Every structure is written in structure tokens, then in C-alpha cells.
């Protein structure tokens, strides 16, 4: 078995750099999609940076604690470092056991309606990841025949086309440590990946356990049916 696997593994490693440079934006693709999809941890880390730098000014993310960042590949020290850089309303620095800091702004700041909490935002619609990406990249100048409501913006993906949220991602809002160019679609895809992780943090584990469970149960089913047939044959 090893004799077969070793060349395969070597070939896989040779091909891996090519896979790394894969363009996931055209056509748009998320690694977590599909029955065996898994979280793209690099994209989720970049997305966290976008959330922290751009989104968190207005949106809360109440379901997460700073300790949860360890699941994104940050070491406990790195996560503690991120938390200690956050100043809580009482003036103290955040710790690993604090929930993500909410903006705590009055609704009046936003024209009367608080921006939604982002904890489950990708779970709240069918095809939530693609919707969120289309929404974040869908801001445009309103067509001539559209009269915008005061304090609203034109968005091609939003139902009714007029969200109260201004276009937030303009490109180069952040500088990625891994050298990825921070274009608007890249930032949108990354923050979508991060928020899909927030809504479904156990996707990778779920798919891994599921694959094993299904393989086991397929064999159990075959075995159970064969046993049943054997027992009934002996009776007859």
C-alpha cells in the first residue's frame, strides 16, 4: 500500500503550489462548499482582519469569544494579543474569555435601525455565502429611473435594492500579512469565509465525522442485510 501511496503523495506535493495559486474569485468558489468542503483557514484569518478593521465599527458578533480565534489557527498568545488590543467600554483591555466587543452605538446613529448582529448572517438565507459576497460587492450608482430613499444606497443584490448600509469595502481597506492583494472582491470573499465560520464553526469536523459515519453505516447496512438474508435462508 505504501508503495502506491508514496509516489502519489510526492506528486501531490509537487502539484500543491499550483493549487495554492488557484483563483477562487472567478468563478466565485468557497472551499467550505460541497459535502466534503472544509474551512479555508487562511481566507478566514484574512476575513477576521477585514471584520475587525471595517465591519466591527457598526456590527456586533455576539456569539464569538476571543478564545474562539484559536480555532482559526492563531496561537493562544496571538489570540490573547489580539484581545488585549481591544478596549472594552469600562476601559479595561479584553481577555480571551470576553465576547467580541459590540459597537454599543445607539440606534439613532443608524437612522433608527441597529445593524444586524453578524453571528449567523450566512445561515439566514439560502446560499448565504454567495448572497453575502454579492451584497458586499453589489454596491453601484443607482440607475436613472431609481429614486433613492434618504440615507439609503443602491445595491444590486439586496432585496428591494436599497440598503441603509453604505458601501463598506472599497479595496485596500486592510493590508494582508500574507501578501494577498486586498481588492474589494478579495476582501468580500475573505470576510464571507470568516462570517461563515462564525455561523458554522464546526463545518470541517462535521464533514470529517460525517464521512466516517457514512462509510461505517454503509458497511453496517450491507452486513445487516446479508445477515438477515442468511438467517432467513436457513429458516426456509
Amino acid at each position, binding site marked *: 500500500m505504501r508503495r502506491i501511496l508514496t509516489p502519489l503523495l510526492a506528486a501531490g506535493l509537487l502539484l500543491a503550489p499550483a493549487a495554492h495559486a488557484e483563483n477562487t474569485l472567478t468563478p466565485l468558489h468557497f472551499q467550505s462548499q460541497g459535502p466534503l468542503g472544509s474551512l479555508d483557514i487562511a481566507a478566514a484569518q484574512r476575513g477576521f482582519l477585514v471584520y475587525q478593521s471595517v465591519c466591527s465599527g457598526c456590527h456586533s458578533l455576539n456569539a464569538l469569544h476571543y478564545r474562539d480565534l484559536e480555532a482559526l489557527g492563531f496561537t493562544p498568545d496571538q489570540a490573547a494579543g489580539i484581545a488585549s488590543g481591544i478596549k472594552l467600554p469600562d476601559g479595561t483591555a479584553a481577555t480571551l474569555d470576553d465576547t467580541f466587543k459590540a459597537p454599543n452605538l445607539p440606534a439613532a446613529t443608524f437612522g433608527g435601525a441597529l445593524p444586524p448582529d453578524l453571528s449567523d448572517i450566512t445561515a439566514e438565507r439560502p446560499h448565504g455565502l454567495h448572497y453575502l459576497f454579492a451584497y458586499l460587492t453589489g454596491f453601484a450608482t443607482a440607475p436613472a429611473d431609481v429614486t433613492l430613499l434618504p440615507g439609503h444606497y443602491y445595491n444590486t443584490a439586496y432585496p428591494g435594492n436599497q440598503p441603509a448600509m453604505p458601501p463598506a469595502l472599497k479595496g485596500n481597506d486592510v493590508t494582508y500579512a500574507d501578501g494577498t492583494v486586498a481588492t474589494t472582491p478579495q476582501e468580500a470573499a475573505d470576510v464571507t469565509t470568516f462570517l461563515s465560520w462564525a455561523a458554522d464553526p464546526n463545518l470541517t469536523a462535521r464533514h470529517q465525522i460525517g464521512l466516517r459515519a457514512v462509510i461505517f453505516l454503509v458497511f453496517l447496512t450491507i452486513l445487516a442485510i446479508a445477515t438477515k438474508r442468511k438467517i*432467513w435462508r436457513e*429458516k426456509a
Partner: protein
Amino acid sequence: MSTDAKTCPVEAQLPCLAHLRAEYCAPSLAPGAPYLAALPALITGALLFLAASGLVLAVHYDPAHGFASLQYIAHNVNNGWLVRGFHATGTTLVFGAVFLLLFRSLYTRAYRAPGQLAWLISVKLFAFLLLTAYLGYVLTDGAVSYWSLTDAANAAQSLTGIPGLLGTWFFGGPAGPGTLARLLVFHAILALGAVALVFALRSAAKVLAPKATGADAVSFHPAYTAQYFAAFAVFALIFALLVFFAPHFGQNPLNASAANPLIIPAALTPPWYLRPVSAIASVFPGAYGGIFGVIAALAVLAATPWLDRSGPHGRPGTLYRILTVLLALDVLGLGLAYSCPSALSSILVTVTTVWYFLHFLVLTPLVTSLEAE
């Protein structure tokens, strides 16, 4: 298998073992029962599984902050996300099995004498499960279920007389901060009731199982334990596929967001298993319309043994079977039409509801008496 009971000292001292042996190891059953005969046993297993996963959830659930505590379970309790998935998907499987059980009883006319009592228990189990599942759904405290509960509690307030008193007692007045704590208790008690009912159903089904004597007869163990185990393996495989690869199967995605007392969702679509009944309830107007629709839908279902005019020995006819399949498609259509609200779907819901009652109240007596001749 065939050791003599009289020579077994343990059985002499512990008579329940002898009962078990007589029940499961004595050759008294006819061979060749279908795999679907295992459905009551599968429902029992799935309900016990729901009770176990529900216990874990109940330990961490906080009815004063329903939505937040479910988020806490999913994020901060060890394997809480998996247990929540188990409970949601287990419910899907229980309802799948109960819908199939009801369909099979209708299709094979198993509801006729001497099976009326087993049929009545099945319908009662279905009613219990619907109510329990509705309460479980409102306990999720999402954007949709919150408003569904508010509507139901307000509707109960508007009733007068005994229904009004019962409604007020059940919900404790209009939906408020304490309502979920109350409904959590009812959810658990009704679930226990459903477990008791499914044991009664299995007892009734045991009497109805075809018997045999002599060389043909088989004992429950090993012949039917092997068959039940195969049925269980398929059931578990479907469960694993759903829980690991489609954990939100049949749920309204809008309900994944927190309840907002200022925003009413455009449509209060419940999980798939409540949709056919909700659709029928939505057709009837007025304060009593919803509850009347639910009771009428279940009552005509329960009355099937008496609506069937073919007598105990009439052969099942082809036309009746076609009608039963049409009824299944009709119930499927009810659920689907109710899932995506529009002008067309409300017409479809009305048509399918009319067909549902037409099937039981007109077509069943007519076709069965025609086919009996």
C-alpha cells in the same frame, strides 16, 4: 434458543425472563413481514434518542434567553453543536417515519378491524408529536418562531369559554418573558406522552402481526431481530447523511437570526413537518379557524376506519390505492405550497386542503363502497 424453561433456575426465580423468552424466542410469527413493519420500533428508538439529546440541551437551555442560550450551546458547550443537530435531525426522522407509518396504514388498509385501535393510537401519536414539535420549534426563539408563538398566544387570548380558559392556562397569557419556561415543561411532558403512546402502539401492533403455527412459524429472534437491525441500519444511514451534511434540512433559514420584537417576517414558515398542518390551519378564517383546521384535519384522519365502507373483508381496490397515493402527493403539495408564500401558493394551499377533506369525507366512502360490490 430452545432450552427448557422448567430446567432453567434463573427463569424460575425471575419470571420476567420467561415472559421475554416466550415473547421473543417462541416460534409463533408468520415469515415474510415487510421491512416497514419495523417502523413502530424505529420510532420508539428515535424518540428515546430525542429524549436523550433533549436532556442534554435542556440542561444548558435558558428559557429567559432562548436564542442566546442555543448559540451558547452551539459555540461553548463541548459538542453542543452536534447534540443540537442530533435533536433537530432526530425530529425530522421521527416525522419521516410517522408520515410513512400513516401512509402505509392507509395504503394497506391496516386501519380496518381489528386494527382500529392501533390506527387511533397512531393518529394520536401524530397529534402529540405535532404539538411537541411545535413547542420545540418555538423554544428555538428565532426571528420566525418568536412571532409564531406571539400569534398563537394572542389567538388563544381571543378565544372565549372553555377553549379560552385552556389557551390561557397553556400559554399563561400573551407571549412574554416567562412563556418559554412554561412551554419548555410542556415540551418535555408531551414528549414523555409520545413515548408512552409509541409503546402502546407497539403493543397493539404486536397483536396484529400475522401469526403462524407449525413448520412455517419463526421466532422473533433471530428472524425478525435481524430484519429490524437491517431496517435500523438504513434509518441510521439516512440520519447520518442528514445530520452531517444537511443539518438544517427543512428549516426556515430566517429562523437562524435572533427574534426582533419590532420586525415581523413576511411569512411564518415553520419546519417542514409542521407545514402541511399549518397550511390547512391557514385556510380557515376567524379566531377559531386555525385550531378548527388542525382538529378537523386530524379528526378526519382518525375517522378513516369508519369512513371506509368496504367492511372487514373487502379486498383493497386499485382505485383506492391510487387515491391514497394522490393523498400523499396532496399532503406533499400542501407543505411545498406553504413553503414559498405567493398569490399562486395560497390558491394551491386552498385547493390541496379541499382535496384533503374531499379524500376522507367523500372519496373514501364512495370508492370503498363501490369497490366492495
